[in-house]
Every structure is written in C-alpha cells, then in structure tokens.
C-alpha cells in the first residue's frame, strides 16, 4: 500500500475543498486523498464538518471552493446521480432506506444507473429485459447474501431491526458498483457484537469488491482497527493525517478531543518542550 505513489493509484483527490454557510466555514480548504482499495477514516468532534465533506464529494452540496477529482476526472458541476454513475456510493448517518420496498427492491434501486432496459422493453417483457432483470435479481440476492440478509429478501425494509438496516444500506450502496464507498458512521448505534461484525464486513467488501472505503466514524475501536489512514477534522480544518498510530499520538488531535492541557509551573521541562 505504501510503496506505489503513481497518480493512477489515487481514486479520490480533493484539493482546497471549502464550504461556507453564510459566515460559517464548515469545511475549510481541505486537501485529501484516497488510494484504490484503501480504507480511510475521517474523524473529528461533532460539528467538525465531516458530513459536509461527504455531501460535497457525493454532489449534494456544491463546494464554495476547491475541487474534487474522482478517478482522474473532475466532479465539478455534476449532479448526485451522475456522480453515483461515475462510481461513488454512500450510506447515511441516519439510515435512509426505501422503507416500503422489499430488501431486494432496495438493492435493485441501487443498481439503477447500471441497468439499461427502457420502459417499453420492461412493459413488453422483451427477452433482453428479462435476462437483464434476472441477472439483476441474482446479483441483488448475492449482495443480500453478502450482508447476511438474503433470507429476508421479500420483507419490507422498514420492518428490519436497526443493525440489519445498516447492512442493507451497505448492500444497496454496493449495488451501484462503486469504486469508492462513503460510509457515514456505519456502526452508529450498534452493540459491540454488531460492531465487530460490521468491521469484518467492511474489510470483506474492500477485499472482494476492490473498492476504496472512506468512513466517518466516532467509534475509535472501528477507526483504529480498520483504517489504513486517518484524517482528523476540527472546525472544518484538517488538523492531522497519518496512520492510526500517528494520529493517536498527535498533540493537536488530543487537544481537539480532550481540550488543552493545563500548564503548571515545571511542566515545560517535564513535556520535553512543545515548541
């Protein structure tokens, strides 16, 4: 992972990304890269601008400045559905499934940008459309199997318990055949066992589908156990970046999370000098 520095290896390249809401700078000229098949975490205290960052990458917010280059091409001016078609999939912090549809339907909606059959072919059930639909259903079932939900394929998504809904969202995001998966707090609200399962699922997804994964996460067990690189945002600015270990030791990060340490006389020497 660390050896190849060729630019073709970078799947997401963000430079100077900025979002202002009136006078508030939610994201402040952030530079950021994700390599292929890499798992990267974006962490930071509440309100640090993580979800805003996601929303800009996925095209829901238009950046105030900066640019997002995905797979070598700028995403500037593209609408969210076009960005999905380019290969970015995402899940939401507050789960947003199509609750009235079955699990399988949810996954099939995720395939929208990959299916070709027009309305006429679908209505007339032309052979080409039947074949495509058959394949789509098979693929959908395989994805449900991956997240261990295939036995509930025909249940309404709204009837699933919370942890399963998170897994379904993941399957739905994978259905769009992304190269980059954005996961917004994938383990929020999960119990420890579910969290462990989610960690291994994310790793499996990366290994089997070869996607890069960018996740926002508060659970440090997840962040440290899963990510190859961690980027820390605070007040919209990137304050640290590196391996999980680097970040854990970084003074700025500790300060952002725990606050500045009180200085007492004599501390200067004990710290070995901070400046």
């Amino acid at each position, binding site marked *: 992972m660390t050896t190849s520095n060729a630019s073709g290896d970078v799947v997401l390249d963000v430079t100077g990304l900025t979002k202002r809401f009136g006078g508030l700078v939610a994201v402040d000229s952030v530079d950021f890269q994700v390599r292929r098949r890499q798992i990267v975490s974006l962490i930071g205290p509440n309100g640090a601008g993580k979800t805003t960052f996601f929303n800009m990458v*996925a095209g*829901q917010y238009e950046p105030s400045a900066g640019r997002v280059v995905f797979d070598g091409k700028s995403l500037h001016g593209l*609408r*969210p*559905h076009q960005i*999905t*078609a380019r290969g970015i*999939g*995402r899940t*939401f912090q507050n789960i*947003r*499934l*199509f*609750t*009235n*549809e079955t699990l399988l*339907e949810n996954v*099939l*909606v*995720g395939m*929208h*940008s*990959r*299916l070709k*059959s027009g*309305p006429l072919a*679908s*209505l007339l059930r032309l052979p080409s459309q039947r074949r495509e639909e058959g394949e789509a259903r098979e693929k959908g079932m395989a994805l449900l199997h991956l997240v261990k939900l295939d036995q509930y394929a025909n249940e309404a998504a709204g009837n699933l318990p919370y942890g399963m809904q998170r897994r379904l969202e993941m399957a*739905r995001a994978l259905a*769009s055949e992304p190269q980059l998966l954005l996961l917004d707090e994938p383990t929020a609200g999960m119990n420890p066992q579910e969290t462990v399962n989610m960690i291994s699922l994310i790793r499996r997804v990366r290994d089997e589908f070869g996607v890069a994964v960018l996740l926002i996460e508060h659970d440090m067990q997840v962040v440290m156990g899963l990510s190859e690189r961690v980027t820390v945002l605070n007040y919209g600015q990137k304050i640290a970046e590196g391996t999980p270990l680097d970040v854990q030791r970084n003074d700025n990060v500790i300060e952002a999370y725990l606050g500045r340490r009180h200085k007492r006389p004599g501390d200067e020497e004990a710290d070995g000098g901070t400046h």
Partner: protein
Amino acid sequence: MLTFEYFLQQLVTGLANGMLITLVAIGYTLVYGIVEMINFAHGDVFMLGAFSSVTTLQALGAQAVKRVANKDQPPIPETYLWLVVALITSMVFCATLNVLIERLAYRRLRRGSRMAPLISAIGVSFILQNVGIYWKGVSPINFPRYIPQIDLVKAFGIDSFVRVTTKDVFVFVVTVPLVIALTLFIQRTKLGKAMRATAQDRDAAQLMGIDINRTIALTFLLGGALAGAAGLVSGLYNNTAGFQMGFSYGLNSFTAAVLGGIGNLNGAMLGGVFIGILGAMSDGYLDARWTPVVIFGTLNLVLIIRPSGILGQDLAERA
C-alpha cells in the same frame, strides 16, 4: 320499474364515471406522491385534452361527423381509426403540456416554501382556463357523437330496464387497460422503481443514481397522458365539453384522490370508483343538486375518521 334494476343502472353509470374520475385522480395522486404538491392545474389539462380531441376529430372526420351525428347508428369503420388517432394525440398533447408546466412553473419553486408551487399551480390553472376560452369560447361545445348509444343488454335479447350501452363499454375499454398499464409500469419497470424511490426519499434516490428531474418530469408526463385520455373519453361519453369542465371534474377527482389516500395509486382508483358510484347514487336517489353535498360531506366524514384517507398511510409511517 324494479328498484333493484334501477340500482344496477345507477351502478353502471357510476362505474363509468368513476373510471373517468380515476384517470384524472391518478394524475393528482402521482404528482402529490412524488413532489408533495397538489397540481391545481391538472383538471384544466384534462379540459384542454377534451378540447384538443374535438379539434382532432373535427379535422379528421369533418364529413363523417355529419353522417353519424345525432343518430344511434354504428359508426363508419374509419371512425375507429380516428378515435385511436385522437386518443393518442390528446394523450401526447396533455403529457407534453403537463411536463412543460412542471418545467416552467414548478421546478424552480421545488426547493422553496411548500406554498409557492401551490400558488403557482393556481395561476397555471387560470391561464389554462383562459386558453380554453380563447380556443373554444365560453359556452359549452358539442362533442362529435362518434360512439353510438346501443343498448347491449337488449341486443343480447335480455329484457331489462337496465341499459348497458356501447358508450359505457367504450369507457371501460379505454380506461381499464390504461390503469393496468400504468400500474404495471410503476411496479415492473426500472423507471417505475425510480419513481417509487423518489417518492420515498428524494435525496437517497439521487444517490442511487436516479435523475430526480427526469423522474419528476416522467411523473407529470404519465399524469398528463392519463388526463388526455380522460379528456377524450369524457367528451365522447357526455357529448359536451366546456372550459369549466376542468374545475368540476378536477374537484371530484381531487376529492377521490384525497378520499383514497393521496399519494397512493390504489387509493386513487378506489376513490375514483367510489366517488363515481356515490355521485350516481345521489343523482338517482336524491337529486343531482344534492350530489356535491353528498360527495364533499362524505369526504369530510372520511377525513375526520381517517385523516390520511382510506388507503393512505399515517405521516408517521411515511417518515
């Protein structure tokens, strides 16, 4: 006259009217389901559909109209072809019109307050009514009598007071397949799936690769096409058309959609047939001038007992 036969007669009339109301009601409910606005101009699109049908039919069969007018004779064979042409023309015309209305009058207001597109829709309604007046004048116009009124019950040799005429049958022959086709479209096709997803969560649908603008335009297109079909069929059924017909039919159809549960396709069908039958019963057993009271009284009652309509979901379920 047998009372049961009288009841059956009202039922037949009610069903035919109910199917027409259903076609228009679907337009209200589809649009509400996807953009959560009442398209007040929808009834007027239906009215212009009837007007465009008159124009098409007159252009096609100026001679033939005179031959068949006011006579209960089987029409000459070409008429069927003209009817098909008029149906398609009216559907395409209304579909295009509805898509244009959305593009010009609603799309820009989508992100604004909920009230803005609603008021815009009322404005569009006024514009369309005035287009109607400009096009065909203020007084009701006669619709070509292309569908003869032959009593099929008698034709089959059954002696009964009940009349099921070719006109009633014509209404079903056009409306039922359209409703079935629309249902299949929404259930089976990729675009139908996109419509359902957009209705449930627009942002999430967008991130699944669904083009929201196109999906919403498609919804207006489908609603407009059905209104166009209803315009032609209602003209041929009632043999009259006028610029206020959009308002009256629109009100009944809107009521049907709300009664059934607005946003719910099956609800619009149920509501449409229900309002049609209720109206016919009221016409038959009370008096036609009491019919609005009966219809809107029922609407009030249903909304008090079940505010989300018969098949509607509670807001909590939708969220």
